[in-house]
């Protein structure tokens, strides 16, 4: 049994134990047990990564561990760890900490499993398992009508996507007699059945990755979930959808065509995400639309990389997955901390608006600073990591020396500038002298929450100053992804 099998077994059994633990021991057992599981998971992950790229089979089921796995898995574990440490106050609402931690652990486990799948059936299966955990977590505040409505939308659209994916798998199975990515790669050609399957994957997984016009569930789901869950959903779950998409279309031998298609979709994501975020007054909804835009930058980079054979662009896209995951994660965690202190501490269910934040920096300096760091980073300002990942995307795009790509980059650049027009008012509000009524009556901030978001903000600045720290992760992933497309 290698490291990764151990890791999945650990997280799966751990997640079950976490569920029963409060009945067996103390109510807080689920939290402690989750932390122990995360520590053990890091050890096993270290073993997996250090033993390098590999593939293996368990019976008929094929698995792969390559650079993409390592990059995505590391991000999932990292953000997952921050969320687990942070989540104490959110998990304990509803007294359902057992469900919260069980599903969070399952979410992490299944996401890592998705990145390991080397056949279409398992890719689909693990993805659905992950989605089930995500549906329930979005509905965690199950006494709130809006949360249930958001879950319904997420569920309906996600299942519609799953159906399309299944249809695509069926097409390929009929054509090649196999669901193995390796077999399909050998057989695939640019003929109708393969490209049709590719189209079904792009739309099916695109639904989960919030590609426009399939993104309509996202603003509801990501703004209604508990903030720590939104951090996971926006930070890594949609990116996992994209990675599954890329895994599924990679063997179809049409990097050029799919690259072009992705570039077009990316432009829509950037334009729609940024323009719609402009009008938002609720902080979490604003962040959700910003995720649509950021998926655009990621997909644009990967699209350019595939279309023009630019590995720098592919690496830029993967780097942006990591940097967006960290920054959006922090943005949700910090706004969640403020939401908790301003509303939930009084058992009130409000939505956090930009005006509510007025003067928050005076009472909550850490959460405000962290939110500002995250937002400026998302806007692509230095010295945050978002500046560097956007730089690399542009570097890869310009290197293609293609006028159409340059025009797309100008659109992306303008989109990024427009995004500052909605991030900046939030920060202005935070640093006002005049406190809003909710801030004046707000509760005290917790030391664990403050430290967690403080460390995450520090990580974002350090990787922004020294982007080379992530080179090994991004480069092995870029090489692996390019190779899987035959580039």
């Amino acid at each position, binding site marked *: 049994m290698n490291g990764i099998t151990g890791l999945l077994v650990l997280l799966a059994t751990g997640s079950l134990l976490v569920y029963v633990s409060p009945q067996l021991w103390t109510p807080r057992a689920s939290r402690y047990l989750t932390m122990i599981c995360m520590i053990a998971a890091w050890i096993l992950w270290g073993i997996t990564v250090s033993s390098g790229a590999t593939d293996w089979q368990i019976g008929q089921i094929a698995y792969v561990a390559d650079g993409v796995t390592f990059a995505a898995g590391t991000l999932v574990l990292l953000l997952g760890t921050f969320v687990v440490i942070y989540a104490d106050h959110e998990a304990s609402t509803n007294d359902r900490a057992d469900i919260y931690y069980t599903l969070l652990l399952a979410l992490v486990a299944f996401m890592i499993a998705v990145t390991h799948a080397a056949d279409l059936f398992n890719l689909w299966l693990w993805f659905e398992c992950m989605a089930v955990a995500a549906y329930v977590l979005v509905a965690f505040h199950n006494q709130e009508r809006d949360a249930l409505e958001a879950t*319904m*939308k997420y569920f*309906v*659209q996600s299942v*519609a996507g799953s159906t*399309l994916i299944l249809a695509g798998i069926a097409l390929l199975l009929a054509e090649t007699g196999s669901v193995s990515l390796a077999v399909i790669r050998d057989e695939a*050609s*640019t*003929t*109708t059945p*393969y*490209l*049709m399957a590719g*189209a*079904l994957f792009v*739309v099916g997984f695109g*639904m989960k990755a919030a*590609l426009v*016009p*399939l993104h*309509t*569930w996202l*603003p509801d789901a990501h703004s209604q979930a508990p903030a720590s869950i939104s951090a996971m959903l926006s930070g890594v779950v949609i990116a996992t959808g994209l990675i599954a998409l890329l895994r599924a279309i990679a063997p179809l031998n049409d990097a050029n*065509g799919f690259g072009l*298609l992705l570039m077009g979709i990316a432009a829509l994501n950037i334009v*729609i995400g940024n*323009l*719609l975020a*402009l*009008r938002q007054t609720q902080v979490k909804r604003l962040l959700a639309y910003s995720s649509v835009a950021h998926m655009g930058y990621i997909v644009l980079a990967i699209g350019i990389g595939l279309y023009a054979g630019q590995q*720098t662009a592919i*690496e*830029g896209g993967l780097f942006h997955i990591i940097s967006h995951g960290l920054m959006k994660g922090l943005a949700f965690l910090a706004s969640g901390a403020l939401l908790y202190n301003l509303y939930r501490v009084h058992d009130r269910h409000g939505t956090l608006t930009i005006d509510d934040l007025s003067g928050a920096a005076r009472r909550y300096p850490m959460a405000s600073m962290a939110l500002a760091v995250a937002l*400026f980073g998302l806007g692509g*300002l*230095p*010295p945050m990591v978002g*500046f*560097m990942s956007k*730089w*690399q995307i*542009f*570097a890869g795009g*310009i*290197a293609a020396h293609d006028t159409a790509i340059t025009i797309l980059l100008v659109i992306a*650049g*303008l989109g990024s*500038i*427009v995004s*500052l027009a909605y991030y*900046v008012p939030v920060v*202005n*509000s935070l*640093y*006002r*002298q005049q406190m809003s009524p909710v801030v004046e009556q707000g509760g005290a901030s917790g030391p664990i929450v403050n430290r967690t978001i403080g460390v995450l903000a520090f990580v974002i600045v350090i990787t922004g100053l*020294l*982007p*080379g720290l992530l*080179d090994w992760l991004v480069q092995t992933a870029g090489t692996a992804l390019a190779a899987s497309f035959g580039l």
Partner: protein
Amino acid sequence: MTGIWFVIIMTSLWAGSAIVFTQRNTRNLRFVAVIASVIAAIATSLLVPLSSTNSITGLYLGDAFGALSFRVDTMGATLAVIAAVIGCITVIYSLDYMVTNPQQHRYFALVLLFIGAMIGLVLTDSLLMLFFFWELTEFCSYALIAFDSDNPAAATGGIRALLITQIGGLGLLLAALTIYSYTGSYAISTLVANPGLLPDHTLSLVAFGMLAAAAAKSAQFPFHTWLPGAMEAPTPVSALIHAATMVNAGVYLLARFYPAFADVNGWSSAVIAVGVVSAVGAAFLALTATDLKGVLAYSTISQLGYMVYAVGLGDIVASQFHLMSHAIFKALLFLAAGAVIHSAGTRDLSRLRGAGRSMPVTRGVFIVGGLALAGIPIMNGFWSKELILEAGYLHGPVWASGLMLLGVGLTALYTVRVVAVVFFGEAQTGILPAGWMMRLSMGVLAAGVVLSWLLIEPLTAQLAETLPAHDIHVVSLRTLVDDITKAPVTPIALLITGFGAALWMLRGTMAAILTQMDGLKPVMQGDFGFTAVNRHLSGIVTLTGVRLSRLHTGLVNWNIAAAAIGLLVVLVWCIGRAQL
């Protein structure tokens, strides 16, 4: 050795900034801010004698990012010293100016962060780091303009400044990456030494991209609209960022890359045109501005226009020399204006009548600064502006020379107007003199205004030595004096200056003429229509957002319908590509 000084400068400023930001004890944080800025000013001054043509490579940032490299040549070192010294003076001045402000930690932290970013910007030799510091200075500028974000005008001014300079910055981003994609190196010196590495049409795109970035940063037409709005910043910040340092970055960028772009078809003419239009247009706007800092802001745009014009003419010495003079006298003017505003509690010229009368020190230094701005001998502004006018007369198009001379007259007129309104006439009561720290800072700058031009010889000698590609001739003090006193354009310029100033005496007669032209006033106060253009552009963006949001009904049926359309399009696209 240079590397060690660089580390000391950046550490003192940025570590100082971090300490100041987290420090809750006001006394301590003010102390740390002053110490950090003084160390940086001394260390930066010590860098000047070390300047050379060598690049120093430091930390490796990553494969797509190159190494952290910098190069202390005299062009960069001069700007770094301006940033550090005026930064230090500003910090000391702010001790009095910000004394009652409850958010001083944020203020001083941002000022220190800015000084570090500005020094990095002018000393780096890496295109990535150039853009990094370029954006970082923009961030600091925004954060300090919007410092008092309870005031809606400050918040809007900050966002506008950030967005407009970012749009220009996009030009720099694309230009920098294009250079990298052809040369395979982030070193600025590579392209400057060998512009032939880029194909002609690409080089021309790069050159114009950089021009857009420079125009936005230096508030030149048509990107100038952010600077008047930036006057919501605390006045010491206006002096430091929006007069003495950050706005010079555009001129610096053009001067730095001049050897690479000089032969690009139409580039020099475009630079000259931008400079002339900004210099004259902004001088007109300064005449009608109704607030004290607004006049100074338009005057900054106008003076930056002179520097840009000089770069277009290929006279890097004149441009750098005027940059130095302007940084000193405009910082002085802003600090003196800040002292008056601080005491009187308003920026409105009509309410500031006679406000500066009972502030003898402030009045004295403002007049010194005003003389330099108007180009009166022997202030530093006189020498540097005459150098530019002479270069224009000798090498430039005639129409440009003529318009620049008109600009000189307008400058004299608006300077006299401000001095006369604020510092003469009937004294206002209840005005307190400036604080001791404020007077000290202004005194140092006033001395600089009178004396800085004496540095012309060492400045040009070192520029010539460390910038071989820029074709710089050493100007000794004697040649400067000889040239300027004998140049035919000098008496003309002085005559026009005198005429411009005299127009103020005739304002009674002028007023009668001006009433005939009242229709022009709204046009001028609307910034020649540029304010409206900005408003329309942002209106269009917002409106598109509104229209698009109507497509988001929140109903699952519509969501699925959108998905179905998406599926159809993607299917058709994919099947269309298939080989049947």
